[in-house]
């Protein structure tokens, strides 16, 4: 499928009888931009339930049996040999040496819905009645790199466009002055930029990174958004002369889409220079809001800032926003107790704050929040106090636009190892996300290297069981 927009060239072709290129050349540059921008807001395949997505990515793989998937039997049989067969290519030791390990955390039923959530997410649990937990996720890839890329691009071995890129490709943006896809503090490893890259889709659909996982959220910025040489006024003057020269060049060559595109890109960039820092400036938020996200506390400050930025971008019309707890932080092969506690302490309050804030602003109506890692962790002990990767069964949750509230979908087996009931593969989740955004994952295609590519390759079924109404 070609991008849904009408290119200027096609317009010239189709309007040859009416008005020619000269009439078009007379259009204002704004209108011209709109007529050719591939980012122009597009009509979805059908009525969408959600307008935008905030994806809270838990890099490293949080444990399902310690968070959202309560397994009393696992606790009872702590230390016992496995009553099931270990998955292929997963365990490093032999079956007879593997032992079950109970969760060190207590689970409680929460809210009116009675969702089981562990004490690691006490604050998120206050929103239990808004959550739609999927306890039957499964994916491909036993290693982080594979699973992270599978989660972000649908492929565990090849470079493919990321989910956000497909979204912007299919839907365009709501705000022409901002990128359509933003990734806040992404990890640089495990695929790195490929996880927000557009691969073979045109570069306009790639995600824009704000900082990276090695940078504090406070310092995070879009690259080259400002310089310290020129004042704003001086830069406006500089741009003035530049654009005058460019316009003269355009006039001299008469018609050239690309030159026109460059001229527009300078205008847009200049607007971004003022708009993005304003959006990222959290001081304009009330003290209550800042506290809601935990920005005033050391443990929650970083992730809190990321979440609050995400809300501001969502409000401003960014289509797809990823917020990452990056650098593989959830990867507790050992030190599960310490590591998971440290992580949950840094994200629990900010996430709860985000949900509360979106709700009070009415944004949860058309914003979909997605939480999860690239896989889960084994109910089996690794060493004395760790858990290995568990791609064959894990949990993610969604909240907001279009999904059921206070709902649990699917289940793992009694020990939380294999997804067992109403299994949801990551391809199914991708199909569902597109569906909620008003797109048919089988129709959103792009032709490259002789094939019509999809986010879901040849797989994926929409999970109707989690959709509200």
């Amino acid at each position, binding site marked *: 499928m070609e991008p849904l927009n009408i290119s200027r*060239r096609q317009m010239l072709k189709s309007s040859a009888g009416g008005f*020619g*290129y000269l009439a078009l050349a007379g259009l204002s540059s704004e209108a011209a931009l709109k007529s050719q921008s591939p980012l122009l807001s597009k009509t979805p395949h059908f009525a969408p339930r959600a307008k935008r997505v905030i994806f809270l990515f838990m890099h490293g793989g949080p444990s399902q049996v310690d968070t959202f998937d309560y397994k009393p039997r696992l606790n009872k049989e702590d230390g016992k040999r496995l009553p099931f067969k270990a998955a292929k290519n997963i365990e490093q030791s032999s079956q007879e*040496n593997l032992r079950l390990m109970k969760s060190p955390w207590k689970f409680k039923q929460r809210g009116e819905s009675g969702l089981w959530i562990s004490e690691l997410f006490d604050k998120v649990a206050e929103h239990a009645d808004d959550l739609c937990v999927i306890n039957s996720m499964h994916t491909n890839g*036993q*290693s*982080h*790199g*594979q699973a992270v*890329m599978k989660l972000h691009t649908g492929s*565990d*071995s090849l*470079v493919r466009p990321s989910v956000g890129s497909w979204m912007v490709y299919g839907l365009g943006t709501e705000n022409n002055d901002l*990128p359509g896809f933003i990734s806040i503090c992404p990890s*640089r*490893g*495990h*695929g*790195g930029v*490929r996880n927000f890259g557009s691969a073979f889709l*045109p*570069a*306009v659909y790639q995600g824009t990174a704000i900082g990276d996982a090695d940078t504090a959220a406070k310092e995070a910025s879009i*690259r*080259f958004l400002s*310089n310290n*040489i*020129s004042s704003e*006024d*001086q*830069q406006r*003057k*500089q741009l003035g*002369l530049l654009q*005058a*020269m*460019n316009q003269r*060049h*355009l006039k001299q*060559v008469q018609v*050239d889409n*690309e*030159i026109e595109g*460059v001229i527009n*890109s*300078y205008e*847009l*960039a200049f607007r971004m*220079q003022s708009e993005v820092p304003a959006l990222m400036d959290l001081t304009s938020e009330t003290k209550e809001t800042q506290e809601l996200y935990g920005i005033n506390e050391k443990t929650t400050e970083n992730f809190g800032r990321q979440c609050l930025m995400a809300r501001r971008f969502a409000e401003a019309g960014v289509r797809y926003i990823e917020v990452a707890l990056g*650098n*593989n932080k959830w990867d507790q092969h050992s030190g599960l107790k310490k590591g998971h506690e440290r992580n949950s302490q840094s994200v629990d309050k900010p996430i709860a704050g985000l949900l509360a804030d979106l709700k009070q602003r009415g944004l949860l109506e058309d914003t979909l929040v997605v939480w999860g890692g690239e896989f889960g962790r084994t109910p089996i002990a690794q060493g004395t106090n760790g858990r290995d990767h568990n791609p*064959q069964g894990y949990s993610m949750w969604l909240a907001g636009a279009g999904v059921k509230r206070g709902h649990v979908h699917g289940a793992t087996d009694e020990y939380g190892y*294999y997804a*067992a*009931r109403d*299994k949801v*593969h990551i391809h199914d989740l991708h199909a569902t996300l597109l569906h909620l955004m008003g797109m048919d994952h089988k129709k959103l295609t792009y032709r490259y290297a*002789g*094939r019509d590519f999809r986010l879901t390759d*040849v797989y994926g079924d929409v999970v109707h069981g989690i959709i509200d109404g």
Partner: protein
Amino acid sequence: MRSFRYSSFFILVMVALNFFNGQSAPAQVKKAALKNNQAGIEFFENKIRPVLVKHCYECHSGEPDEESASFVLDTREGLLQGGDSGKSVVPGNLKQSLILQAIEHDPDFYAMPPDEKLPAHIIQDFQKWIQMGAPDPRKGKSKNNSQKKKSAAAIDFTKEREFWSFRPLKKPKVPDVKNKNWPANAIDRFILSKQEQSGLTSVTAADRLTLIRRAYFDLTGLPPKAEEIQMFLNDQSPQAYEQLIDRLLASPQYGETWGRHWLDLARYADSNGLDINLTFYNAWKYRDYVIKAFNEDKPYDQFIREQIAGDLLPYKNDAEQTQNIIATGFLVMGAKMLSERDKEKLRMDVVDEQIDVTGRAFMGMTLGCARCHDHKFDPIPMTDYYALAGIFRSTETVHGIRLNNQFVSGWMTRPLPVKPEHAAALKAYEAKLKALEDKLKADSSQIKLLEDKTDQQKRLKKLTGIVVDDLQAVKTGAWQDSVYSKNYLGAGYVHDKNEEKGEKKIRFVPDLPASGKYEVRFAFPGSKGRAKRVPVTIHSKQGTKTVYVNQTKEAPIDSLFLSLGHFEFAAGKVGSVEISTKGTRGYVVVDAIQFLPQDQPVEKDAAIAKAEKPVQATDATKQAKIKLLKENVKNRKTQIAKLKETAPPPKPMALAVGEQPDPADYRIARRGNIHQLGDKVDRGFLTIASISESPEVSPKQSGRLELANWLSRPQNPLTSRVIVNRVWKHLFGKGLVRSVDNFGHLGEQPTHPELLDYLSQQFVEQGWSIKTLIHEIMLSQTYRLSSEFSAAHFERDPGNKLLWRMNRRRLSAESIRDAVLSISGQIDLKQGGSSVSHYPEQAVNPNKNTKMKQNPSEFRRSVYLPIVRGSVPAALAVFDFPAPEMLVGNRPVTTVPAQALFMMNSPFVITQAQATAERILKAVDKTDQEKISQLYLACMGRKANGSEQAEALKYIQSLMSSKSKENSNKADVQLQAWTSYCQILFASTEFRFLN
């Protein structure tokens, strides 16, 4: 179990019945069979059919659907026939009945039903039913889907060869044209002929200023310098232009520019990318090889052969062999999912990537499509894909492990030939180093032992009874010390190196405090790969007894010990335990023997003290020894450091492929699933592009050599067409075939098929010389046209398919950066060499990254910048430098705000603008007007006119007055103002575009 016997009997009876044609069988048996049959049908009706209806029919009934359900389960015939992957049910055979794999959710197959695994008892019912012979009364025909499918036999290759790109190459006649004056060569006549047919004429020729800027950027990627422009303008000779072209083709910058075009196809990078982003320390050699090949105008057919099979080609000398090996880096360059734990999958994913790039780079064919099914659009059957897969699977690309992790694969690197003196120096150095390191190691472990530092030491100390460690045992033959497996006692254990079986023995003699009954325990770190039957002989009061010990598993007691039994021993050094390697297969490992008294407890410490005698020493001598050893360690470390300083250059290595020891054909992987292999396919090439007899693949080699020869032969209809079109694309911005990487049915048709064939044929005839081809094209009038606009022409041919003008092009990412550096005077034109030697082993680390130090050669040409996957330099990435994981023959040209931000704010552009300003301000003999004009000439390739000069100076003046309010230093302010202006020039569209 019972049901199995029952059903075997049933099948036997049925066979017997058939054999006797049912007539002579006793009536009783017949009756029994009927009864069993009845029971089978009942079982099906009760247990199987309802499950099929409930869980399978939704997709697997009615008509098979090629894409999602290639077979049906609603008739017995459909069930037995199966689909793409094979038979769903084979009566009586559990292994071959794929339906079982599916319902068991085998990770290597399909998981059916997809959303939920059936309960175990239902799966057991299916097993039982299949063992019963899969009784099933259902009737009805199933539409056989596999017959409908296109197969190799079904493709009409003769007809397909009428398609323009598969047609045999013939040299077309150069057309006659009306306007005899315009054409400069045959190219122009092809172009003009088409224009005349459609009543279009071309615009005027480009002026000389435009022409020299175009020629410079196209051939060298750099702008012409002011004096070069002047020289060309002054040269009135008719050969001036041709001489310019020849001069530029001969410059080293030509190879850097055109080599880079090739590197886009080779997905060149200095790191692996994907998840384990390891640095490719040797990739630069391939990059330099490519640049050199272009500079030397290596014949393109040879260039192909070297990249596909350089390691298998004959060579005259070391230099040639070196180049040949390096060239195969083309096949290794792909991004690999190194952490894939299914190593066969990794291997076949790499093969797939190699097939894909080979197909697209050399032939413009999208072969990857045929991995799972016959190509949907092009005449490429799956068998062609797997014929190539056999070749690449017999090639070694994935190799070894990295990061000390069994799950992380590595890739092939190969040593390059070195001079004998170098080899000798290396050998001597390595020997010296090893000797020192061995001594260091020995001393260090001795210290550890004396200091009792390790857990294993502690473990040994804690043991009760009498323990004889391997250190104290009497050894016959060469036993290797080891600490590889961690479950040992004391300082380590020993193994027999899996060598000289039967010649090695090890004997443990305890000094027992009292006579009596002892339990004898044998300590060894058991694991896979170790010997299965190790003879252990116990000499006791009762005589001699030999026990055979299985060492392939961990020992049962505390993962350390195995009990050999209870024996009577006399006091003192009388009894013994002897371990032999006789008749063993696999490593024999020996750690210690423990004697546990069964009669009365023995004072532990006393026993240990006795047993450990050789290790024990008085405290003072022990301390002295430790001190001495530490001194030794320190000295050795200094010696090693010194030796390393004077080390000869390391053995040069290259990213390169090799041959697998067991070359073989591969099998069709059904639906691309490597765990579902079908028929074997002979190794070979594309049927469609084999116009004459193809070479046979040697059974002793991978077949790469034959592939290389087949690809590069003149008769291959695709190879020459594809490269000629690529060259055209780089000179005109668009190819004669616009889909440069796709010459199949989904690609575009050539705008000038005869011209493409003419040039391709001539290219082959003239020895596959790229420089000759470029020369020919650049001398055409067509290339020399201006890019001026014409409304009338635009109306008729907006896409400029008839080439009525030159396409205006945006400069490439490299050209923008290199031109800026060239204008600022900062450019470093040094050629070749590594750009990533200062990188860590993981170019990008998934857990934490420290900022990379400034690239020591940051002003080198862009082609030499580190191309780390996932971390491409911003100056390149923003201007559509392709993702280095992917083959890109036609870079997209996008206009995104990130480019504008880069021009407005990046430190690179600002510092280079300042360097430019400093440079121009130094020309004190020039007026400000002249300075502006000079800048214009450098950036735009033309002088500024009066009003442009005035506009510039007005801007500079106004900025100076505004800046001087903040800063009183006049020189500073002047520099800042000129810097700001230079930045405008770099950001301007006229600079960024090529007319």
